[in-house]
């Protein structure tokens, strides 16, 4: 009947639009009918109809693309379901969950790795964002250019092209980051000691976390026994499991532009007279920042902490692009979401992957709940 592919595409598009209109109208009618049943006036019914009519496209989309998949995911999490098998999902109850929590070393490893990124990476990300915001708040020339430059990584995002560039930059020998470190070391010898100390501390902390993952601390003992790194040492970014997580942290810090803007908005909202009064009383710049700006920034810190924590717990793209083709380094960098991807799309165990996704959700909910409960202790929304 219809053989022209372009006509088919137009027809499909028209059908989609009609579907959206029809469901929007239907939802509006249903809502106004419900209002009428509750005894609402004609005016209220009309307003209800209009409100739901305009909200319906989003509501319908949310139901189709979020709620329905969520329900399926929850069901599959209680089944043994392999997508490439011809067998339908087999109900196994809580077996997937108990295996994950009690038996799966790989999942525990991914939790430890994600914890590392959250405990070390997130505070670093927030600190750098705050520092940049404070610098930009000095109202220097070219402030807009700097603001754009620092926000550019957020616009570029963690897409494949950008991450492939990072792979080049993180090469141990020829990557620009290590070239800069070598250059600074040669130009300023004291920097060399600082570099080696930082490498030593980083490798100890990383080996400690790897020890928790592996259940033995062989590597930590070796790192300590090896002692202070040699003069020629530079970070082994994408080459060593001791550095794989730190390379991801570097990317997290690089993408702190959004946090920086939040802090900048917060700094701009602090009444100038507070700092002026403090200056008159003899307070130094540091004291003004520590005693006035920082407490008043607490709501913004809290926001960045909550959002940053959620993002850190769900980190995936940097690890996938940096380490997907470097199998031996994956265990040292694998995050919970990467583990979910591996189970679902590499091993094709959709049921197991669904259980992982629900556990991740519960972890995020619990942590976010705790953060909100604790905010009363340190977050202040008062200006005076």
């Amino acid at each position, binding site marked *: *009947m*219809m*053989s022209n592919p372009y006509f*088919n595409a137009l*027809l*499909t598009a*028209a*059908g989609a639009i*009609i579907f959206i*209109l*029809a469901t929007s*109208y*239907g939802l509006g*009618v249903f809502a106004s009918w419900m209002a009428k049943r509750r005894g609402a006036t004609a005016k209220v019914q009309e307003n209800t109809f209009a409100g739901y009519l305009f909200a319906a496209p989003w509501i319908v989309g949310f139901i189709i693309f979020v709620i329905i998949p969520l329900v399926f995911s929850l069901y599959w999490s209680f089944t043994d379901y392999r*997508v*490439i*098998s*011809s067998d339908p999902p087999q109900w196994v109850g809580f077996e997937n969950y108990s295996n994950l929590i009690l038996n799966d070393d*790989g999942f525990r490893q991914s939790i430890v790795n994600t914890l590392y990124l959250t405990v070390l990476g997130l505070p670093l990300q927030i600190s750098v964002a705050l520092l940049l915001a404070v610098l930009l708040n000095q109202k220097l020339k070219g402030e807009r250019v700097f603001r754009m430059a620092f926000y550019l990584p957020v616009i570029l995002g963690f897409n494949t092209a950008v991450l492939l560039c990072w*792979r*080049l930059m993180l*090469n*141990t*020998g*020829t*990557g620009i980051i*290590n070239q800069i470190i*070598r250059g600074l070391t040669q130009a300023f010898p004291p920097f060399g000691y600082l570099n080696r100390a930082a490498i030593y501390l980083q490798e100890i902390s990383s080996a400690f976390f*790897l020890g928790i993952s*592996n259940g*033995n601390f*062989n*590597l930590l003992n*070796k*790192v300590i026994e*090896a002692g202070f790194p*040699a003069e*020629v*040492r*530079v970070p*082994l970014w*994408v*080459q*060593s*499991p*001791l550095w794989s997580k730190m390379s991801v942290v570097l990317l997290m810090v690089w993408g702190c532009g959004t946090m920086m803007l939040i802090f900048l908005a917060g700094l701009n909202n602090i009444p100038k007279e507070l700092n002026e009064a403090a200056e008159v009383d003899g307070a130094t710049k540091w004291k003004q920042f520590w005693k006035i700006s920082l407490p008043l920034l607490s709501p913004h810190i809290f926001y960045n902490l909550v959002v940053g924590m959620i993002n850190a717990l769900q980190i995936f793209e940097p690890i996938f692009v940096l380490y*997907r*083709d*470097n*199998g*031996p*380094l*994956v*265990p*040292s960098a694998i995050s919970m979401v990467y583990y979910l991807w591996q189970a679902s*799309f*590499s*091993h*094709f165990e*959709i049921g197991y992957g669904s259980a992982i996704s629900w556990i991740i959700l519960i972890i995020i909910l619990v942590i976010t709940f705790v953060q909100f409960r604790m905010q009363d202790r340190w977050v202040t929304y008062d200006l005076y």
Partner: protein
Amino acid sequence: MKNKRIFVVLSMLLIVALLTACGGSNEPGENNVANNAAANDAPANNAPAGDAPADDISADAEPVTLKIYLLDYTADTIAWLNSEINPAFEAAHPSVNVEITEGSWSGWDTTFSGFFAAGEGPDIINLGSEMNTLYGESLADMDAYLSEGAWDEIGNFGPALENAKYEGKLRGLPIFTAPRYVFCRTDLMEASGWTSGTPQNFADWVEFGAQASTIDKATNSLTQQALVPVDAGSMADWQWWLLVFYSLGGELYKADGTPNFDSTEALATTEFMLEMRQAIYGDALDAVGMLPTGQGSVIDVNDETGVDNGAVCLAHSGWAAPPFDRPIWENISIDPFYGDPENFPNSRPVVLAFNDWLAVPEYSENKELAAEWLKMAFSKEGNHKWNETMGLIPARNDAQYGYVVDSPQLASEAELAAEFGVGFAGIKEAAKLSTIMQEALGKLVTEELTLQDVVDKIQEDYTAALAE
């Protein structure tokens, strides 16, 4: 007012329903009912590819799109398919349009899981050697179209055909045989002071690894790596491990089907991998930097700068070989991996033979058409030309003429594959084994786990994976 509203809503729903019904007439499944019925009743005809169209596909049939998904082929291959095979196929099947989609080996598993989860996708998909057991349950039984009784040319396919079977049934056809051998730059070997050719035991390999690798003192990084076994950085690739293991005479499974990673061959293989890595990179904690990004493969020279590409020897397939017309081939030797005959009497020279293949998923509603296309593309001339565009060895024995015998390199590869080839098929739970091994071997090279810990871990985890 209310009646008007209800009328409008009902009208819209009616229009949507009508349009949905009309759109359904374009589904390939409905158009191919006659074809599938004919296919179920009788095998496809045995007419050689390019002859008159199959009787059960009428010129008046609804248009059908035969979708083919290929991974990482050269531009020449795709151009040839689009300029010769597809037009010929479409001419023979007037109602059929052939559509090739090019994908990448990076992310293939995610893409394929989408096809199988949705139950729809390309009619022909590109799989790797070890994937027959991974996807076998979801692939169509193509015996009715391609086996001996249905296609008399099937007997021309060599041992590679086993890669395309699952539970004894054909699921598609193999494209090429890509042996993974050891090829070395003899000039760089001699320049490093190594004059005895490709090493033929473990001790020689370790000595060669240290001798032929060079380090730039300024960056404390490699500028030349004695051996690049698939992965230059970690040197802990699972396929490299399997090559070494097989060379010692190792068997992946015991007689009862359980994994054999607790064997002496497995321990020796693992120890050799660690020693090779340390010979080139040093101890894990003081490891030198790896080759610059992008170097190590292909084993070649930059014509403009005269700089070598970083590897002295490469344990890889033809993908990492330079084009055969490059003058560098005068300085490249091709050998199998010899194992360690001094310590393991069962050692044998081994070449891992990879066979990429095209399979037909069970969800496809165009199985017979897919079989017809495969017959055309995998005719003697088709299989020959396909591999000529890539410089690989055709899976069909009778297609190994012309460039295969004219090229000394390919002729050598074919001989090696024929004499020393070990297939890469039949690995149970290949995806999980890959993950398990990569994880354990990664912890080997960093010395997080001891040698014994590594083999024990692989044995335990793989046994558990197979039990599931």
